[in-house]
């Protein structure tokens, strides 16, 4: 269906949004340097509130390996204490403009994991246990370096639930644009000053993974393209931070530890743990509000990561992040939406150039169609226990959001978009060009125009 954009109406909507930048309750900027214990809990105090249009500036701690070898932390990450957004109520959404992401770590270590026997209650990422004294969530101390350096503070036993199957230590250049993996001698030198090289935030309690000094890959060069593995809103009930997604969250169903959920309860997740490399500076992320205040949190900054994150873990780093937030009343979305930076869009989803529009208009008229559809890109996130389920989830969310059928979404995603793997086993992006009238009806057009123009 051909649609003429109502420029005056769109400008009015944008002006209304921008006008809120200068007023409203809450703090202008909330600075965040505190972290949760691994559990995103809507019942715990939030920082802020930040005003609608205000900013959040955070110093984030590494995710994955550091928290994984710190069983005192009850999730796989160490994300920031959530920040309330003034006026956010269940059923609203929060638009997050990612203004800046900067890596502060000089080095990190990573690799695939091997789970050690008898060191957890069902899930080693959530409920670590000392194999000797049986203390669950044991405090630990670091003694020396290497993969046996993390010791139970109670009895002294080796208490890490994980070791590397294949691991590496990587150091970055001063411009944080390239990294090189290191040999054993250098990895061990870094391990002796792990927290310094990790630029570990002062209030973080995690053991730095640099302590393990892995060195299976040497001389490998990686380009940096940092993004946030975790960025979102607090779930409607307590969920381990690493499991706030439909794939990892599936392991909470019927779990033997205290954070078990039913399948119905898992619907309270907000899918903040996406590991989508397009969640980087310049992108706009829109997140569901499932608890009062929303509770914007972030963490798990990745220095670089390929689609799928097939190793399970990548280069987790400390960093600083600047966000601007906007409140969208009554949007009622189940999971996140993303407006990626244009270069991150699949080729078919990129907005038409003026020249392409002119040629397409001529082509349409040649074939008896008066006008071409005006459309702009959007990426709808889907998650599930596997990629098929994640794709179905994303398609259904897109259909509900834009008042389409799933078959229509499939067609659009096929000829004007793509299904992109975010993270294996179950996070995808359903990306396509959506009609501007549908975006406008949901209050999303100002963000699409900000990203992609007219």
């Amino acid at each position, binding site marked *: 269906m051909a649609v003429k954009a109502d420029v005056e109406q769109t400008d009015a909507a944008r002006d209304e949004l921008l006008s809120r930048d200068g007023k409203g309750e809450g703090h202008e900027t909330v600075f965040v340097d505190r972290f949760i214990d691994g559990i995103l809990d809507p019942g715990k105090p939030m920082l802020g509130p930040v005003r609608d249009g205000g900013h959040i500036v955070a110093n984030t701690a590494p995710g994955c390996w550091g928290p994984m070898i710190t069983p005192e932390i009850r999730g796989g990450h160490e994300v920031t204490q959530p920040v309330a957004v003034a006026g956010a109520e269940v059923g609203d959404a929060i638009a997050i403009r990612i203004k800046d992401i900067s890596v502060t770590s000089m080095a990190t270590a990573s690799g695939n*994991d091997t789970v050690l026997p008898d060191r957890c209650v*069902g899930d080693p990422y959530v409920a670590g246990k000392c194999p000797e004294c049986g203390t669950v969530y044991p405090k630990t101390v670091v003694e020396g370096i290497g993969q046996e350096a993390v010791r139970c503070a109670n009895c002294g036993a080796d208490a890490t639930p994980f070791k590397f199957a294949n691991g590496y230590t990587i150091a970055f250049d001063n411009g944080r644009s390239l990294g090189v993996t290191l040999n054993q001698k250098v990895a061990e030198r870094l391990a002796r000053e792990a927290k310094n090289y990790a630029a570990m935030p002062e209030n973080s309690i995690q053991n730095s993974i640099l302590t393990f000094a892995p060195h299976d890959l040497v001389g490998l060069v990686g380009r940096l393209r940092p993004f946030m593995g975790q960025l979102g809103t607090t779930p409607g009930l307590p969920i381990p931070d690493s499991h706030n997604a439909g794939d990892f969250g*599936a392991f909470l169903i019927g779990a033997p530890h205290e954070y078990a959920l039913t399948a119905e309860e898992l619907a309270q997740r907000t899918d903040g743990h996406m590991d989508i490399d397009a969640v980087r500076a310049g992108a706009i992320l829109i997140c569901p509000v499932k608890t009062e205040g929303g509770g914007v949190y972030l963490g798990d900054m990745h220095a670089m990561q390929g689609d799928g994150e097939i190793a399970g873990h*990548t280069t987790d780093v400390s960093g600083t992040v600047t966000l601007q937030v906007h409140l969208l009343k009554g949007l009622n979305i189940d999971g996140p939406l993303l407006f990626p930076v244009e270069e991150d869009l699949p080729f078919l989803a990129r907005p038409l150039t003026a020249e392409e529009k002119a040629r397409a208009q001529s082509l349409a008229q040649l074939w008896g169609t008066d006008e071409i559809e005006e459309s702009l890109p959007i990426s709808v996130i889907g998650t599930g226990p596997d990629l098929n389920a994640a794709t179905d989830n994303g398609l259904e969310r897109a259909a509900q959001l834009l008042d389409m059928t799933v078959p229509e979404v499939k067609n659009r995603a096929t000829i004007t978009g793509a299904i992109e793997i975010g993270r294996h086993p179950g996070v995808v992006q359903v990306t396509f060009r959506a009609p501007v009238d549908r975006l406008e009806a949901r209050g999303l057009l100002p963000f699409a125009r900000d990203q992609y123009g007219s």
Partner: protein
Amino acid sequence: MKTISVRVNGALAQQIGSSRIQVALPEGATVADLLDALSRQHPASGDLIRRAIPVIQGSHVSPEAALPAGQQISLLMPVAGG
């Protein structure tokens, strides 16, 4: 009898030595029957098999659920990454 295709991951795949297993079961067998048969086939992995999460077509299934014809079942060990 029917042959059920089973996919396993993580520590369970490491112990069994493969990520894909075929199990012969009578018609009408349930997920619980599959877990019992697997435990007999791989007795050293019985604990992990009982802790794995059964998933068919992206959805969790209970032990009482019948095994649908022609479908693969996954027994997934908890993983979390990112």
